Each structure stands twice: as C-alpha cells, then as structure tokens.
C-alpha cells in the first residue's frame, strides 16, 4: 500500500472543506496551511484515520514573519507516517499580540519540550500545555529572542571601540 500526497489532500479536503489552503509540494513533501483553531483537529484526523496514520511528530517549531500583519508567527508541524513512509508539513498562523495555539501534548508526548522550546524562543502561548515555562533560556528572560526584531550584530560594523575588546589601540603607553 502506498499513500500518495494526492490522496492525503483529497481526504483532508473531504473532511475540512476549503479551510485548508496553500497546498504545495516542494522537495517531495506536501505542505499546507491550516487555521489555528483547527490544528488539533487536523492532527487528530491525520493520526486516527486508518489510511493516513500520521503517528509520529518529527518536528515542531515556529517561524516569525514580521511583515505579515495579523499572522506574524507560524507554528510548523512535521508529521510522519511510519507505515507508508510519508512525511507532511503544515503551518498554522497566529498574530503576535495574542499568540495562542492549542497544545499538541495530548496527542504526542514529544510535543511537550518542543512546545516549550517554541514558547521560549518565539513566545507562542500553547493553550493547555501542562508546563509552559522556558527550557533553554534563563527563567528571568523577558523577551523572545528568535523573533526578528532582535537582529544579530552586523559583522561589518566599524563603530566599535576595539580597545574594549582587547584589540588594537595604544595599550600600555
């Protein structure tokens, strides 16, 4: 038995109608966008159906798109069907002021830390998560560092005082 992306798409369209958008197939992996209220329903459907069986959560992370007003944060799920060896990716978008997305921990135990990491770096508030606290950064941190408003230092900048960094200058004269 082999499961085709076309079949998955049809099954999803049957169940959810046209709320799932942006179906694409790049580099052999199907991806689509789902409304954020439906993220759990979509995952549950993909998990339960006999012919789909996406029962492995490969990866869960977020991406910040500062220019998409009202949909700045995307939470990205990578699911994997071990039986037919098919992977798929879907995204849910949320605005950055109320970044609330339902947690997937009830379905996948592995989502626990991945969601904590996503919260830690992007501030996505996973509703219903058992322990949504920072995981890699210090607890006292009051911002979400992977957002694009925190750029890294420009490597070509010249306004730094080299003396402060142990380079150059007339030290010791």
């Amino acid at each position, binding site marked *: 038995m082999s499961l085709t992306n076309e079949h998955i798409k049809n099954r999803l369209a049957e169940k959810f109608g046209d709320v799932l958008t942006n179906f694409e197939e*790049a*580099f052999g*992996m199907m*991806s689509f966008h789902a409304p954020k209220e439906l993220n759990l329903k979509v995952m549950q459907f993909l998990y339960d159906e006999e012919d789909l069986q996406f*029962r*492995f*959560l*490969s*990866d869960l*992370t977020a*991406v*910040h798109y500062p220019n998409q007003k009202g949909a700045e944060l995307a939470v*990205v799920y*990578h699911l994997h069907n*071990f039986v037919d*060896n098919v*992977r798929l*990716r879907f995204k849910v978008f949320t605005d950055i002021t109320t970044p609330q997305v339902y947690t997937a921990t009830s379905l*996948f*135990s*592995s989502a*626990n*830390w*991945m969601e904590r*990491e996503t919260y830690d*770096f992007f501030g996505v508030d996973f509703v219903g998560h058992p322990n949504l606290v*920072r*995981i*890699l*950064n*210090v607890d006292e941190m009051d911002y979400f*560092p*992977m957002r694009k408003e*925190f*750029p*890294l*230092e420009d*490597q070509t900048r010249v306004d730094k005082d080299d003396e402060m960094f142990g380079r150059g200058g007339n030290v010791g004269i």
Partner: protein
Amino acid sequence: MSEQQHIKLPEGSIEKQTNTLNLGPTHPATHGVFQNVLELDGERIVSATPTVGYIHRAFEKIAERRPYYQVTPLTDRLNYCSAPINNIGWHLTVEKLLGIQTPKRVDYLRVIIMELARITDHLICNSVIGVDSGAFTGFLYVMQYRELVYEIYEEICGSRLTTNIGRVGGFERNFTPAAFQKIEKFLAEYPDVLKEFENLFTRNRIFMERTQGVGKITGERAMNYGFTGPNLRAAGVDYDVRVANPYSSYQDFEFSIPVGTTGDTYDRFLVRNAEMWQSLGIIRQAMDKLKTLPEDVFHADVPAYYLPDKDDVYTKMEALIYHFKIVMGESEILPGELYHPVEGANGELGFYLISDGGRSPYRLHFRRPCFVYYQAYPELVKGAMLSDAIICLSSLNLIAGELDA
C-alpha cells in the same frame, strides 16, 4: 523494577518524607552539563525533573546571520561525538535546496565518513554504559580505536573532534592514499576489538543484571515520545532514515536494521553493538565500490557554490569571481523551504531550512534527536533505583551540545 509497590504510610509520618537529590549539572555520571532533580524515597526514584539549557549557544539565531558555508562549523558543535554526520547532513540539506547532484564517488566517500562517525559515537556510548556500571576495561579497549578514526578525520580534513568536514558539493580535497590506508587499518583491526568488547559485556552476568529491565519503554510510547535512532529500534520499531529516506546513495548498500524487543538499557546496548557491525560492513562495501570509480572526483561540478582551486583563483578570471562571490556569501541561493533528515548516531537529525533567497538562512531549525527523547527520562526512571538512573541516562546517548543547541 518499576512494578515494585510503595508501602503506604500515614500522611506526615517521618518515613513518608522523600529526599531531593541534585544529579548534575556537573556530576561526572551525567557526561555533560545537565541537571536532574530527583525525588528519592530511600534509594528509589519517585520523580525526576530534568533541567536543560546549560550550554545553550543560540545556533539557530547565529545561523540567521551567516552565509551557508559558515553554518557548517555550528553543526559540528551539536553532537560532537559524531560531528561529520552533522556536517554532511547540513551539506546535503543545502545541496537539496540548490538542486546539486553529487557524483557517486562523493556519496560513497561521505558514507564512509558518516559510518566511521557512527562507530565512534556508538563505541563511546556503549563503553560508557560499562563505565557507569563499574566495568572500566571495555572503555579502555575501544577508546584506542576511536583514536584511529580521529586520525582518519585528521588525514582528510585536518581536525579531529569538531571536524567541519566537506563542503557544499563534496570535499575540500581528495582523500590521500594515507587516508585509505588508515581506513583499511581500522577495518582490519577493529572487528577483533569489537568482538572482545562484546565478549566482555554481552553475556556478562553482572552487566546483564544491571541493565536488563532498566529504563524500559514500549515501542508505542517510544514513538509517542519522538524516539528515533537506536533507542527507538531497541524498542522494536525498525525505523532508520538511511532506509526510509535514503540520502547520499545509501540505497546502494546492503545492510540490515538491528532491532531489540524490550526497549531497555540492555537492548539499547545490543542494538548499538549490532549497528557497529553493520557500519563496518557498509564501509567495506563502500571501499569496494570506490575501486570501480575514477579516482580524481571528490566534488560536484558546481563552480558557483564550490570554492575553486587556489591556483586557479590567482590565474583565472572566472575562478577569481566565483571565489569572491562564495566567500562574500553572494552566490545566488534559491528561495525554498525544506526539511531534510539524516540518521544521526543517536536518532533522526533534521534540518528545517527556510531560504528567502538571501545570503543566509531565513530560518534554520535543528531537529535534535536527544532533545526530543530526553523528555521521556522521568517516565523511564520512575520507580527505579538511583544507580539505575545513572546507567539509563548513559544508555540514552545524550550529548549536551546537541540537547541545548
């Protein structure tokens, strides 16, 4: 051991009290900087709370500012026991994005390096289980042979631990005859040592008593927890990225996926040992296949992404232009979004890369296998003894650098 019942005592009685023990962050038995707050009832573990993040270095953020070729050294520092797999996984991701086809010889050379890396990673993990259960000898036997592998790395790329091996499109230079000699030497000598190592442990009564039934997990729970690699296979699920989504011509090789049944520490140990034998077989096959291929091919013909020969840079206009563009990160990168998994030594190492066409990734996320499965640790050790917690931890093959990215 988890089936043992706790004695019910009245609330507030002194025997009811539990002790808190900080295992880590710098405990020698954790083999890395991470902390476990254990709640102990006598010597039995009531609950464990893992704390991670002590060596978080923000690689994903740093990668957003770097040209693609400068991300490679960051990947070294994820799972530093098998850095070449990370390096090559990253090159493969970029090659997939750019649509670069590598010659067969490059694929086979990469397979050799990746399997050597898998052997070094597994031999460390397995011998350390021995160390943590009181058997130091095996560790000393095999460490000597990790040295041989590091000498092979040294011959190929000049460095040993954090290798930064290869480039997008192939290798920075061809393998020397000395490198092949060293690989042959390793292939000739290592099987006897591995055999001896297995003789010391596999049917050793003390080792079996210490490891069997410790840190047990069923296949279903393991999948739910996102286990991959040897830890998942020890629980009986035969998932291996090399077979499921072959990369770097793994489809040309004959090998089997060893699986366990119970998913305990002993099975994880056996699976890793069996995988080392498989890896040796793969390297042997690759060495044979190389004999039929032209000897001077070590990179794909992609002048826009692969640094030209230094002699050409000084004498040829084209080469100079490409050299400049690559070093300045000005080569044209296509926009795209992809997830590329490779079979790391401890599980599925995934690179989720979004390129917006700029000089550096728009977003790069590492799917680090041990970060995902370490969260099962409280469930694995609940109800076990303190000494079981230690060997369970070492049998999971946690690498702090990968855990914290």
